[in-house]
């Protein structure tokens, strides 16, 4: 009896049984840069969610006597041309970025993944039609596609989310398609078919979960891209319309006062840089943690 237990202990020692989830977590959070990214993302979400409570001043209240002030104790990041507090506007701008990011990425990932699954699993003419449409969308630079759609639909936050979402569909579709192409050759999928499972069941219960790790990486990275795209559109003046505080339009507003108050343009840019960087760092961390080829080395 004791001998058996001892043997089990030896086995447990030589083959450490850590669950895949815990191993991934350890790889991810074991690196300081990834941890930094996670902290930055939480700070960003916190600021966006609590903007009304943590903003020192009203972001929309104009005070023309107090315009273009340099950073001071009353206005930590100074004020803009209308005397509005830059820091408060920065906090409110985080809400727009987060909202656009979440909605655009959710929309793009749901549609893109579905199209990729269907095209790859059913193949044939469906595959051809879907993938050629995706090729077409990929012939244009995302920003040109987004501008064209935004021009047709008009500006405003909803249309911006739709156009950014449409611009990101191809990447999800392509990635899901590639994943499913190799997964569907596996024996367990064949077994499912032999048992008589429906196509939907195979796609959603078997193919999708197995194709998911790289998709979650793409979703994380795309949060950053969507926020960057929204900022770009707002900077150009197509996206979020004034007086709503958005980081891109704040940079554009500040551009005219570069010599008098450079902080106006610099601060929102730093915010965009940090948030996009955070999503990229976490995305890279996830990629390494979920990559089966790196299992054992990390």
């Amino acid at each position: 009896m004791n001998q058996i237990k001892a043997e089990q202990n030896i086995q447990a020692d030589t083959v450490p049984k850590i669950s895949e989830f815990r191993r991934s977590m350890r790889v991810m959070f074991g690196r300081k840069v990834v941890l930094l990214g996670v902290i930055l993302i939480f700070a960003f979400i916190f600021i966006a969610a609590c903007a009304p409570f943590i903003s020192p001043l009203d972001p929309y209240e104009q005070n023309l006597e107090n315009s273009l002030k340099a950073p001071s104790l009353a206005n930590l990041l100074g004020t803009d041309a209308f005397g509005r507090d830059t820091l408060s506007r920065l906090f409110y701008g985080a809400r727009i970025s987060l909202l656009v990011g979440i909605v655009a990425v959710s929309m793009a990932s749901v549609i893109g993944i579905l199209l990729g699954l269907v095209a790859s699993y059913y193949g044939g003419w469906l595959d051809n039609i879907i993938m050629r449409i995706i090729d077409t969308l990929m012939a244009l630079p995302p920003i040109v596609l987004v501008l064209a759609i935004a021009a047709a639909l008009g500006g405003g936050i909803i249309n911006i989310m739709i156009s950014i979402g449409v611009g990101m569909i191809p990447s999800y579709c392509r990635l899901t398609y590639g994943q499913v192409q190799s997964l569907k050759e596996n024996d367990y999928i064949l077994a499912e078919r032999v048992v008589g499972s429906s196509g939907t069941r195979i796609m959603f219960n078997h193919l999708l979960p197995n194709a998911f790790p790289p998709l979650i990486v793409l979703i994380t990275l795309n949060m950053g891209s969507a926020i960057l795209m929204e900022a770009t559109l707002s900077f150009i003046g197509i996206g979020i319309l004034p007086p709503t505080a958005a980081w891109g339009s704040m940079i554009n507003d500040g551009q005219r006062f570069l010599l008098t108050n450079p902080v106006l343009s610099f601060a929102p840019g730093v915010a965009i840089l940090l948030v996009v960087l955070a999503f990229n760092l976490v995305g890279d961390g996830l990629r390494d943690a979920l990559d089966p080829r790196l299992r054992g080395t990390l």
Partner: protein
Amino acid sequence: MLTYIVRRLLLSVVVLFLVTILSFAIIQIIPGDPAAMMLGTEASPEQIADLRHELYLDRPVVVQYWYWVSHAVQGDLGKSLKYQESITKVIAERMPVTLNLTIMSLLLSVVLGIAAGIICAVRRGSTVDSIVTVLANLGIAVPTFWLGILGIYFFGLKMGWLPIQGYVSPFEDFWLSVRKCIMPVICMAIPSIAVLARQTRSSMLDVIRQDYIRTAWSKGLKERSIILNHALKNALIPIVTLLGLQLRLVVGGSVVVETVFNIAGMGRLIVSSTFSRDFVAIQAVTLIIAIVVLFANLLVDISYGWLDPRIRYS
């Protein structure tokens, strides 16, 4: 190789056809009457009806499409509402500007990105490697328009080293052209430099571990020859794939950079057309940009087949 090229070419033709449908569709997804939207609120019903007739909007969709495509093939993409002249002419003036900026940025990003990636892979774990890795992470995340504004502030306004806006053709005044292009080209190139450096580093690291590299070392070859002839050529395949994807992003970067530096190119044209709801111009610009991207991707695909014989025969 020839069949491979022909197959790629045919695929491009199919996509090109779909691109014409996409460009054409832009005017169809406008909610309401496109003619009324283009003319604005002050237009009289007669004016709107005239424009509808001029743009063939009062015919069935298939006829509209046929009319648009058959004219497009002959180089007539319609009359810009904003410029009141042939949009083909407007594009012909602006195309060289954007092409110049794009080609210079691509060259810069290929040279710098691949060189930085090779140095990092060869000197893995060194200070240079860490610095480049940090810079690459920042380069991917930085908003290019903001980078442009930083450049304008420091190198233009504070130091006075570089002009802060505009564009001059290199055939007119070469040095002024170079000075004016430095900042826009660097801004357009930075994201691609960063992405290419990362990809080059990781694919070089993959290749360096291979047996044939060890063989090359043990044969007593020089480091330079091993890295450039043996390792780089094999590491290039994923880099070229990435370059194909980066191409359209660099072209897209011109939209932002031309806006920041006030350069009259294609990017600026699509932005101003978006503002003035000049859909004739938007259709034309998207079509032309898509053709340029398709053509460039075709070149990438062909070089890909040349680099990796397995692709040619599959």
